[in-house]
């Protein structure tokens, strides 16, 4: 992928992510037997938030929300520009760091608990992502995203267990049930995003859409050079995690970390070992 395509894609990623989010709200409503909001609902929210009077706790907290948006945007560009996959993953950590430090920086119990849980989310899914970067390297022979996208191999065939593991950790990244402890709207009312309002909340809200694009592009990589399969994978992943979101209740953070560490990571490692054995 050239820099220009990546740049344009990154620039429009909030739009893409907004559509995904709008579709998700409809799909979720239909799954619950409701009609649901219009497809453009996220954009209505976006423009409405633009018009609100902003109130802030203190300036540091407020601009950390904006930094979260910029950081996520940059992380997405790093991923899309075809550079190193591991570095793109760690840039994602960097962008989360802004949200977490912002969440910690106010004396709100909900925000601090949420930020702590956000870190635990990271502890849960981050090793899995590093392992999948390694696995993709083993299959395609490169860490460069552009190389993976032009590889003749379809990593999915070699990495079925790892793909299942990543699929199950998708809710942890996008903060959906069963792994939505960091947001937990009924419990801690949005966690680190609770104290943002008006335009500053808008930044956090938009950053979440960009994270959708980030996460789904990661799924896309599992199809390697076969881009049609990649699109199918994204659609499958989308419906799968919406289904998961609707049929499961929230687990607590210990269960979440335990599930990732004791079930998903061993699953991924098994896959890695099998492929290493098969290759040697």
């Amino acid at each position: 992928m050239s820099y220009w395509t990546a740049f344009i894609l990154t620039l429009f990623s909030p739009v893409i992510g907004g559509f995904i989010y709008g579709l998700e709200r409809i799909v979720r409503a239909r799954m619950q037997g409701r009609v649901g909001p219009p497809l453009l609902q996220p954009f209505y929210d976006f423009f409405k938030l633009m018009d609100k009077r902003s109130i802030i706790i203190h300036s540091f907290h407020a601009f950390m929300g904006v930094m979260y948006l910029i950081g996520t945007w940059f992380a997405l560009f790093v991923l899309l520009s075809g550079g190193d996959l591991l570095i793109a993953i760690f840039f994602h950590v960097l962008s989360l760091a802004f949200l977490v430090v912002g969440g910690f920086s106010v004396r709100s119990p909900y925000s601090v608990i949420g930020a702590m849980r956000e870190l635990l989310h990271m502890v849960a899914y981050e090793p899995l992502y590093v392992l999948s970067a390694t696995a993709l390297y083993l299959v395609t022979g490169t860490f460069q995203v552009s190389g993976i996208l032009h590889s003749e191999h379809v990593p999915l065939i070699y990495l079925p267990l790892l793909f299942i593991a990543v699929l199950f950790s998708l809710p942890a990244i996008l903060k959906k049930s069963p792994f939505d402890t960091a947001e937990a709207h009924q419990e801690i009312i949005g966690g680190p995003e609770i104290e943002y309002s008006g335009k500053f909340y808008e930044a956090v809200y938009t950053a979440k859409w960009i994270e959708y694009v980030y996460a789904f592009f990661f799924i896309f990589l599992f199809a390697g050079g076969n881009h049609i399969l990649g699109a199918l994978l994204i659609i499958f992943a989308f419906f799968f995690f919406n289904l998961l979101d609707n049929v499961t209740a929230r687990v607590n953070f210990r269960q979440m970390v335990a599930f990732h560490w004791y079930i998903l990571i061993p699953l991924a490692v098994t896959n890695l070992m099998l492929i290493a054995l098969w290759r040697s």
Partner: protein
Amino acid sequence: MEKIVYSLFLVPWVLALAVFLLPGARFHRLRQLITFLSLPALSFLTYLVWNGHLPLQIETPRWLNLAFTVYDYGLLLYFLYQGIKFRDFLVTVLALFQLFLLTWILLIMPESSVPDFYVDRLSAFMFLIVSTVGTLICIYATKYMEQENLERENRFVAILLWFLGVMNLAVSVNNIEWFFALFETTTLASYILIRFRWDEVSIKNALRALWMNQIGGIAILLGLLFGIKYYSFTHFTQFLSLSGKPAIVMIPLGFLAVSALVKGAQMPFHRWLLGAMVAPTPVSAILHSATMVKIAPYLILRLSPVIKGTLLAKLLIITTGFVFVGAGLLALTQENFKKILAYSTISLLGLMMLTASMGSSMAILASLTLILFHAVVKALLFMEAGVMEKLFKAKYIEDIRRLVERAPITVAFTSIGFMSMTIVPYGIFVSKWMAIEEASNFLSHGAYVGSIIFMATGGVILALLYFKVIGVMTRKRGEFLKFQLEKVPFAYLFSTVPLVLFVIVGSIFIAKLLCLSVNPVVEAVIGTPAPIIAKGLTLITPVSELYGWQIIGAFVLLLIVPILAYFVHFTGTDRVYEYTCGEKLELNIGTYNFFCIQVVEPFVETAAVALFILTLVLGGGLV
């Protein structure tokens, strides 16, 4: 050239003597000046060595050998005396055992004509760290002790300076018997420094450090003994000649590696390093960063061409990788700021030794980068811990809550220190990245799969820990509007600012730094340089690239934060209180301390003991 190397040992000792002979409050300024002189003097000498013709082998007169033997006996007898004086069973017995082993070795010691000093780039690399980071800590210590105990300042700073000389000597000797003497001298130095405050806890912890490090000494002696028995080898360079040969007897190497694990405070021998925090903070700074524990990765790096690919290396990878994760987990449960730092040192030492035992050129490069940046960052963090302790009376996580309101500079420096250990553009991250990518090349063996898992999980646990601490420090009340920069004494700024600058500038120019400075060291260690290329700011490794714009972008993102925090206040925007469900509450936010993890502590330690024995028995080939 030889004179330059000698002066690298002697200059710190002369300066230490000068400082020691100027007691009292009157000469405080003079002592500071003398201590300050060590920085340009040692840096210049290191510069000369670095640019000189390396490797350098120095023949020494015979009387020096005798002198070292006499010194060995004196040192061990002093340990024995300390053991009897404080009625410490372990110290006494271990000292006696060492005396016995030493006598045995001296009886069967073969004559050898191998030069006793061997200064290559690895030694020069260690000189570099000692002579910059170490001397900055000494300068810091003059101010620190002024605020603590002016009467004993001369003694304290003199020991620190002397320690630097010892460290320089330790990394340049070739004779393993001499290395043992210097190994035990660093033990002695840490013993004296830890018990410096002379209270009950200090003495207890100092004795613990003493007996644990004595075990390391015994391991060296045993390694030397078996080396003489099997090969009649007494020098490191002789061991290096073994590399690449099949079916070598691993016992001496196994014991030397175990001594490195002990010195590097790997579990189960981590308690001595934790105990060191009772001493004044510069002691922790110097033990954790420039000296003492860095002997451990140094020793593994020395041996890595020989042990590469053997069972010993694989077991070392598993052991140190386990410590990397386990120490990180235990660090989560700690409340004391210095203890958190100590555990993270143990953890990162594990990573250094892991990459060093992998033995390929990229892994060695990663290990050296870690050593360099870890030394700088840990020195910085401990100095900031000392500043917090002295100026803001903050020792525990509870005390540093909302520190940013009182001390924005200290918080900024500490945050840079913490972030540089996890976040994307900094040097330690780059070495982790290279290590992960290198480990993926070897995935055919179980140990290497283990190393990937350890690197993936250990890194994220440390990130959790650091961001928790950063979060606690940067919390601020809504009513607090404008930052007031605190007044930090000049000596503190003088010793911390260069380190911060190095971390930032070194990370921006990481590609150049690795290619020009670290890669020659890699070549000296294993013979071939790592296949990396620097193109502008871009670092190109065999399998991937770290682009310059990524580094710059990350730095811009990170540097915007403090700048905006200081200048942007959104003064036109409404302020509001925190959401508390409508209740009017006195907000007093605690921290989550992960006490639930404490239950795993015995299991982690048991597993570490098991792995340790496994390394010694299977890796060393004792069966």
